[in-house]
Each structure stands twice: as C-alpha cells, then as structure tokens.
C-alpha cells in the first residue's frame, strides 16, 4: 500500500508543483501593469554605460530613437550571477549568510537536477555513456545532500542565534529551513545506508513504470519528504525565483518608454478607466483614474 502511495505521490507531486506554480505565475501576470519604477544599474544599454549604471536618458532627444535593441544576453548574465552565485547576498549581507545560503541554494538546484538525472538514467539506461551517467547521478546526489544539509541547517542556526535575524524570523521560516534540512539529511543518511543508490534508482524506476518497488525506510523517507516539499513549495515564499522575474525583470529593469498606440499604451488606457473608491477628502470617489487626473476635486 505504502509503495503504491509513493508511486502516486511521485507523479502527483510533480504535477501539483508544475500546476500550482503555473497558476500562481498566471495570476501574477494578470495583475495590472505597474507604473515605471526602474532603478540603475540595469543590464540595458551599451557595455560601457552598464558599467557605471547609465541609461539612454543621458542623451538628448531619446524619445526620437527606436527602442528595438535586445539586451537578453546581459540580462541573462546578471540573472545568472544572482541565481548561481547569489552576488548581492555575497556583496551586501552583513550577517554572513552567503556561504550557507549558497550551499542551500546549490543543494536545492542539485537535488532537482539529481531527480531529473535519475529519470533520464532510467529512460536511457544502458545506452551509450551509461557509466558516466551513473557516476553523475551518484555524485550529484551526494553533493546535493551534503551542501543542502549544511546550508539549511546553517541558516536555521544563524537565524536562531543572531538577535537581529531572530527578530524578523517567523516560525514558518524555521519550518521551511528544517523541512529542507530533513530532506537533505534523510537523503544523506539514505546514501550512507545505500552508497550505490540502488534503492533510489529502483524507486524512480517504479514510479516511471507504475510498478512499486520495496523501499528501505531512509530512502522512502527522503523521497516522501522531497515530494511533499514539491507540493508545499508553490504555496510558500520559496518560489521567490519566479517572483524575481516580476520584481527585477519587469520592474527594476523595465525602462522602455511608452509609445502611443503600443500594447502598453492600450493596457494603460484600460487601467485609466478603473474606478477609484478611496475615501480621502481630496479624492473624487467613484470617478475613474482618468477623470481624477483631469482635475476633479481641485
């Protein structure tokens, strides 16, 4: 029975993770277009200008110039530095969180990668460079467990032991870290009990072929926690990596000016027709934003 539940959970957790994340992202994307609110430096513009944080507004008559250039590579480089090296945490965090945060983030990336590799190995098993793949699966898994455990436990200790951090840490923050720590530690222990990760491979194979395999306790615990975590993650702030697209890419870096007749212009026109119900004495309640701007209640 438990083995069957684990098979269903294996599929269900992935589907829920993808589905709930997609719904969350869709809902965020449906919220109104915000006002321009960029900050510099941004990864837009020529390299020399990016170096010191300049923008196209350093020139005269910029509104006469086309806004067609793409800065995707520079954006990816900046995002990569943040995602893979936590650049801002390393440079600016005054509480020494960077090594632990790096370890936890890399532990998570590798854990996700390890799960993917297990699936790939099962699908292409025995074909071509299977030995290399097997070696990769084992190394990535162990690295994920060790780094993740060190990082999440280290962050939990940091948060609990420093008065400044403790002040802002809610029970849910400890829960998140300890939840993650439990996955990594159980994974680590399961590897110690089964250094060849044979039971892990058997479980993933069983999920993919809908044929439940017997699970040792530690291996079962590791996958159970990981799958519950996949279901929990989209409901928590742990999906802040999606949020970054909206906060950084679409706000802090969004510097294109509005052109009449453009899609942005049409969106703004629709939003100016929204009605205002603010009760301040200077606000003309019930009027649209456009009517407010046109001078109601001088």
């Amino acid at each position, binding site marked *: 029975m438990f083995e069957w539940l684990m098979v269903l959970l294996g599929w269900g957790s992935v589907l829920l993770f993808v589905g709930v994340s997609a719904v969350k992202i869709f809902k965020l994307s449906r919220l109104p277009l915000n006002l321009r609110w960029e900050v*510099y430096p941004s990864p837009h513009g020529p390299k020399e200008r990016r170096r010191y944080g300049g*923008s196209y507004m350093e020139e005269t008559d910029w509104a006469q110039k086309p806004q067609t250039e793409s800065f995707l590579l520079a954006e990816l480089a900046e995002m990569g530095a943040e995602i893979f090296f936590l650049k801002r945490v390393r440079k600016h965090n005054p509480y020494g969180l960077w090594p632990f945060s790096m370890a936890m983030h890399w532990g998570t990336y590798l854990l996700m990668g390890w799960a993917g590799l297990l699936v790939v190995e099962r699908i292409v098993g025995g074909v071509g460079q299977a030995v290399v793949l097997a070696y990769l699966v084992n190394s990535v898994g162990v690295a994920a467990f060790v780094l993740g455990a060190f990082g999440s436990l280290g962050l939990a200790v940091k948060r609990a032991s420093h008065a400044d951090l403790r002040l802002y840490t809610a029970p849910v923050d400890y829960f998140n870290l300890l939840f993650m720590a439990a996955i990594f530690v159980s994974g680590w222990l399961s590897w110690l009990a089964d250094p060849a990760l044979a039971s892990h491979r058997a479980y993933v194979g069983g999920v993919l072929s809908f044929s439940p395999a017997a699970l040792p306790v530690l291996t079962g615990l590791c996958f159970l926690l990981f799958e519950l975590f996949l279901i929990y993650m989209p409901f928590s702030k742990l999906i802040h990596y999606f949020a970054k697209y909206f906060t950084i890419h679409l706000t802090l870096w969004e510097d294109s000016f*509005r*052109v*009449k007749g453009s899609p942005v212009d049409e969106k703004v026109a629709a939003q100016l027709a*929204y009605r205002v119900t603010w009760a301040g004495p200077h606000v003309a309640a019930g009027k649209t934003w456009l009517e407010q701007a046109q001078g109601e209640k001088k």
Partner: protein
Amino acid sequence: MKKITRLAQIASPGDEPLAPLSVDELMALPGLAQSVPPLAPPKPRWLESYDFSLDGFSDFDLPKPTTPEEGERLVNGFLSGLEKLFDPQNNWPFVKNLRLAMDYCVRCQTCSEACHVYVGSGRQEIYRPTFRSEILRRLYQRYLTTGGKLLGPFLGADIELNVKTVWRLLELSYRCNLCRRCATVCPVGIDNALIAREIRKLFSQELGIAPPELLKKGTRQQLQVGSSTGMNPAGFRDLVECAEDIILEKTGKKIKLPVDKKGADILLIHNAGEFLSWPENPAAFAILFDAAGIDWTLSSEQLGYDAVNYGVWFDDVELARIAMRHVTLAKELGVNKIVVGECGHAHKTLCVVADRLLPGDLSLSEMPRESCLPLFWEIVKSGQVRFDPARNDFPITLHDPCNVVRLMGIVRPQREVIKAVCAQPLREMTPQGVENYCCGGGGGFAIMDTLNFSQWRNNVSVRVKVSQILAAFEDVLDADADKCVIAPCSNCKGTLREALRHYGLEEKYRIHYSGLADLMVNAMAELPGPYIKWNQEM
C-alpha cells in the same frame, strides 16, 4: 543600543517613545561632535496634543485620538485603506509590486546596510528598511489573507492593530527617504522604499493624512494656486523680472526670459522654489540657453512654472493630476519637448513615473520629457559657449540626486560638464554615482519642518551625506579655501543648506553648495567676473 525585541511592540500602549534617540547613539561624525547641539525633547504643550510615541519626533500636527470612538474610526479607516491598497482597481499603479513584496521577501536583511537612515542612526532597529515593511506584511497577512487568518502566529502575523500601531506605522513611513538604494541590493528585488510609499499612500488617499507640507501646503496648494510655494502666475512674472535684474547686475547682459512663447522648441520647467531661494539658478539657465542659441520658453500658466509634484512621494491621485497639467500645458504651447530644471523628483516624475499614468496623447512618444543635464553636456560639446575652467579653481565634489542618478541612470553628463568647466579634478564621493547616498532630504524630508521633524532630519537622515562630504574634502578641510558641493537638485540643495548650517560646515571649513548651471555660468569666459559669490546667502 537595541531597544526593540519584538515587532509586536509597535502596538504597545502609552505615549512614551518606542525608540527614543540620543546624539551619542547616532553614527559618529569625527570632529563635529562638539559643534552639534543635543537633541531637544518635544515641547510639553506638543506632548499634550500630538503623538510622539515612535521615536520622539513628528511632522504631524494632528490631534491624537482622545476617545475610543475616534480611535476606532482611525483603525477602521486604516483597515479599509489596507484593503484598497491590495485591490487591482484602486491601486493598479503598484498592486503587483506590493503583493510581490508582501509575499516573497525572504527576510535576509541584505538591504540593511544599504540604508543611510539605518546606518546614520547608529543602526536603530526601527529604521531598518525591513522594519516597517515587516509590520505591514504581518498586518496584511493577519487581516487580508486566508493563510494569515488560519495560521497567524505560525506565519508571524502576530501584530495587534490598534491606534498606536496605526500611528507609529504612519510615522515610520516618514522615516524613509524613498531613495531606493535598498532595492538595488535585494537579491529578490523587493523594494522597501516602495512599501514605505504605499503606506503613505494608504494614509493620504483613504484618510487624508499626510505631512502638511506635502498635501495641504503642497499638492493641494499647487493645484489651487499654481505652485506649492504659494506663487501665483502674477508672482511668477515678477520673479522672472527679478531673474532678469540678477542677470543684468551680475553679467551686464540684458536677457529677456521668454515666457509663454508658442511653438518654442523647449518648455523649461523649474522647481518654483529656485526662483524664491536660489534665483541665480534659473537666471544661469537663461544665460546659458541664450548663449547657446536655444529656442526655449517658460510658462506662466498655473502649475506651468512649478515642476514639483509631491504626489510622487505619497499619493497617486495627486501625482496624476499635477503631471497631467504639466504635460497638457506643454501641448498647448506647442513645444517639442519639456526639459526639467535642476529638480530631482520632478525629473523622475515627468520623465519616468507619470509615463503610464496619463492618456496616450500625453505619453512620452507624444510629448518627450528630458533632463537638463544632457542638454548641458550638449552645450559644452557644441563649443558655442566658451568656458574658462580657471574660473572654477576650487575643490569640488558632486552629490548624486537619487531621482536623477539611481532612478534615471543619468550619471555621466554632469561629470563631463564638471570636467569641462572646472580647473581641479572632481572629488568623487564614496560611494558615487548610482551607489551614492541620498542627501537625507528625499521623499519630502527637505521641506518638512512641522513640530520637531527637521531636528530628526538634520541629525539622522543627513548624517551619512555629511560624512561623505567631509571625507571628499578630507585633505583640504583645514585649508584656507572655499570648497563646493555641486547638487543639481532643489530639494538636495535645501537639505544641504540646512545640514551645512546645522553642523557649522560653512563657518568651520568653508564648504558651500551650488547648482550645476550656476557653476557653468561661473566659468563662462565672456562674462566680466565670477557669477558665484560664496559669502552671499545661497
């Protein structure tokens, strides 16, 4: 000294300040300790009527609630505003950003050291960028989210909403300069300055509560009279004549400032405060534009002569109204573009923030709005005006107004201009450019002086800037020579004026301040003598 142990203390009863300040707790300013007066407590008669229960300072001369009914009205009004803040129609300008900030901050405190108020205060907890944000977040979770209603204490949504919470949160929203330096270092892109602004907006748009200088004497007066200074069109025309007199007196040139010239290339809009406090600055623009052969005009229509838009600090409705009037006036004059004078927040408002708040006919593609700084650089590059750098042979440092530099990316033009018109190399502040610190007057603080608020500004929010200025002139501090801080922004100049006075820096070290146009005109080779006179009140 750490005074706060739990965020829930924000709701604690009593009139005693939650986190009182004393000078010896603030960031040290070596060499200035003796010349700074101690912080004075609020006057006893103020304490009877007004609330000082955050840190002992306030700009709000609003009577504190005296009956349970008054208190209940305030709390209910706050809750009603909180709901509207998260409503897509009532707060479309920033609802997405606010929701993201509420839901995805990871509480890593990476932003703390980026904040000059927090650092300048000696790292007092209540001034940490995340302090007010976390309180709003916990109220939002507790009162507006299903998760918070079901799992309040687990999520940290444990803050009680009472009169004290509301009042202290109002005060807290005016302990942030909105410089947004914290947003540039946040690994998740959370903008704590935006959260401060949204709290201000809630109070203004729902309860009509805002500092008197920003709402009653600010946007309201500007919309009714024409300027937040109280200047009407007739008064403006008088001041234009004064500027012409200044030009004649200082340069011997007879220049007629163009006013309401239809079809000019440029509509130049200054912060009207320049005409009153630093008329040499708009006069310097006229001298430069005349010499460069620029086709420009001023406007004498209501609002057309005052670029300020305080709405950008606290109220989207007022922001939209003022921006709409500015751009409409330019359309009516038939100019090709608006150029904003040396006023930082007017730069950001007209050139950036208002872009998506106006109808399509007034969008940037239809009526471009630009900074004056690139135009200055063009004037230098054109060679039409001859500059003699030897006329500016004194140590110079450059303040980077947040609104122009960090929030618009205009970094290089002002540096190129200084290089071209000054004899000595620019002494950059540390840090500089987009990383530079706010002057301490941003977000409205420059003009807020009700009750004892200016005391807080002069001691706390300007502290890091004063330290940067002293460091920039470190090797020439005691030299018998004038030194100058260039600040191409009216509110920054106003803040620096007060800071230099408060710390006695003009007297002690001969440190002065100036706008950029003034500095350029001071170097114009064709003029008979210096344009800037240090011993005059600036």
